[in-house]
């Protein structure tokens, strides 16, 4: 398949754009593969891409219930960052961020990665101390972090109301290498690059059962027939419990709703990602000009992929508190994704009680930024039948062993993470 390049855009333009081909094949399922990945979102396609490109395993199928990239990959606020407190998490997310930095070259696909900086605002002494602690933890692990004072925030994001009557802004923790990427292009890019290496991407193929014999996975029953494989990886945010139930075990996950919103298009207004410290609100501006923003969970389990109005109202209110000018804007669209919420807010990239069955799951509402890292570690775990050191802590057994990765210290409440 011909590579994408600036020169090719030019020459295709001169030839009436008649030479473009679909970015990936519409594959039909074969009877067996070496590895099947369930879920054609960013994480599943990234798993297939790294299986092929890093481990040389190309006899791989990705099965997807609907269309590529129309689950949570297409339903997030596109933020990429690695500003985590605990070493187990910040090493993992930093690895993901480094993959993001070279992603367009390794995929030969423009994912519009924009390292425009992520600022987390703080509003009181305790929040400042927590931000300092997190920033120091990041810097000790070789990750960039800067503490901004009030003037620093004002210089970088002047639209924020620093003198909010109830929650005046004291400063912010900045990660300059954080930013945004074009979420759909991430799915398309991984699909394109995985397909080019021989991976079959099979859309409209829903898993209806798992074939488990003697405690080991043998394959899947799907709406397009039975497909056999000695190894199966799950990357099915929101539906992980449904699939593990087919394999005969429960996981520490509850499925919750998270909404995201886009305003009408504007001229450039916010050129970084900024999050409110006094409420759950984060915002950036897309290349089309719409403000992309979100908040917290709707608060109760749902597979419905549609949000409710009280949460929408709460998110808008938090936004207007942080940036009063938003009050003049109209919301254009809103949507909801279904999140695998875990008891400690951290994910699972691990083996499971069924031999040959692996998962990348439990991404709560931080899965997008992890996409390449999740796929990379999941592929390693599948290929070697053992975790890489970057995901060795992200197991299903960590609660049994007293190793929770609870960044927020909220305790084992799925809906509070």
């Amino acid at each position, binding site marked *: 398949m011909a590579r994408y390049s600036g020169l090719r855009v030019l020459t295709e333009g001169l030839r009436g754009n008649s030479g473009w081909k679909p970015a990936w094949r519409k594959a039909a399922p074969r009877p067996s593969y070496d590895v099947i990945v369930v879920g054609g979102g960013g994480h599943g396609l990234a798993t297939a891409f790294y299986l092929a490109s890093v481990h040389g395993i190309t006899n791989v199928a990705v099965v997807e219930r609907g269309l590529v990239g129309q689950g949570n990959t297409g339903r997030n606020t596109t933020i990429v960052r690695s500003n985590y407190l605990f070493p187990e998490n910040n090493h993992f997310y930093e690895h993901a961020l480094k993959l993001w930095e070279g992603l367009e070259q390794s995929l030969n696909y423009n994912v519009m990665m924009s390292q425009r900086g992520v600022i987390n605002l703080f509003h009181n002494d305790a929040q400042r101390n927590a931000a300092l602690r997190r920033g120091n933890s990041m810097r000790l692990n070789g990750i960039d972090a800067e503490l901004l004072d009030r003037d620093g925030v004002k210089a970088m994001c002047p639209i924020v109301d620093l003198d909010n009557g109830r929650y005046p802004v004291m400063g912010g923790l900045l990660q300059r290498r954080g930013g945004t990427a074009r979420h759909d292009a991430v799915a398309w890019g991984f699909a394109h690059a995985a397909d080019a290496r021989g991976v079959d991407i099979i859309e409209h193929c829903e898993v209806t059962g798992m074939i488990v014999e003697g405690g080991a996975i043998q394959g899947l029953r799907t709406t397009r027939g039975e497909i056999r494989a000695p190894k199966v990886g799950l990357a099915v945010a929101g539906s992980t419990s449904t699939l593990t139930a087919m394999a005969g075990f429960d996981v520490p996950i509850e499925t919750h709703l998270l909404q995201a919103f886009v305003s009408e298009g504007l001229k450039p207004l916010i050129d970084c990602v900024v999050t409110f410290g006094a409420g759950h609100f984060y915002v950036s501006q897309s290349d089309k000009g719409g403000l992309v923003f979100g908040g917290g969970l709707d608060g109760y389990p749902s597979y*419905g992929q549609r949000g409710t109005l*009280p949460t929408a109202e709460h998110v808008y209110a938090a936004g207007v508190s942080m940036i009063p000018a938003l009050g003049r804007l109209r919301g254009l669209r809103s949507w909801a994704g279904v999140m695998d919420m875990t008891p400690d807010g951290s994910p699972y990239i691990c083996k499971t009680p069924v031999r040959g069955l692996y998962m990348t799951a439990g991404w709560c509402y931080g899965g997008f930024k992890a996409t390449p890292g999740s796929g990379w570690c999941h592929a390693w775990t599948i290929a070697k039948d053992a975790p890489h050191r970057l995901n060795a802590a992200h197991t299903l057994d960590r609660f049994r062993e007293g190793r929770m990765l609870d960044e927020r210290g909220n305790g084992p409440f799925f809906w509070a993470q």
Partner: protein
Amino acid sequence: MLRIPCPHCGARDEVEFTYRGDATVARPAPDAGTDAFHDYLYLRRNPRGWQVEWWQHHGGCRAFLKVLRHTVTHEVRGVVTATGALEAPQA
């Protein structure tokens, strides 16, 4: 948008209530062992369908209630007090 018929206060808007988890999870006996307590604290059925759940009516009578709710359609089909019996329909 949910409307939950509280047995004490009548039908009220969801903003008066707080979800407090799966109500079918029962605390094991004190000597049941660490595996039983692990499962109690962390493992969930997480059904795609009917679920019996705890909700607290914080904006009303403040009581904990059991609510039968569908996790795809959000339909609320039954509400009883904390000691009442409420079971999810099969499949």
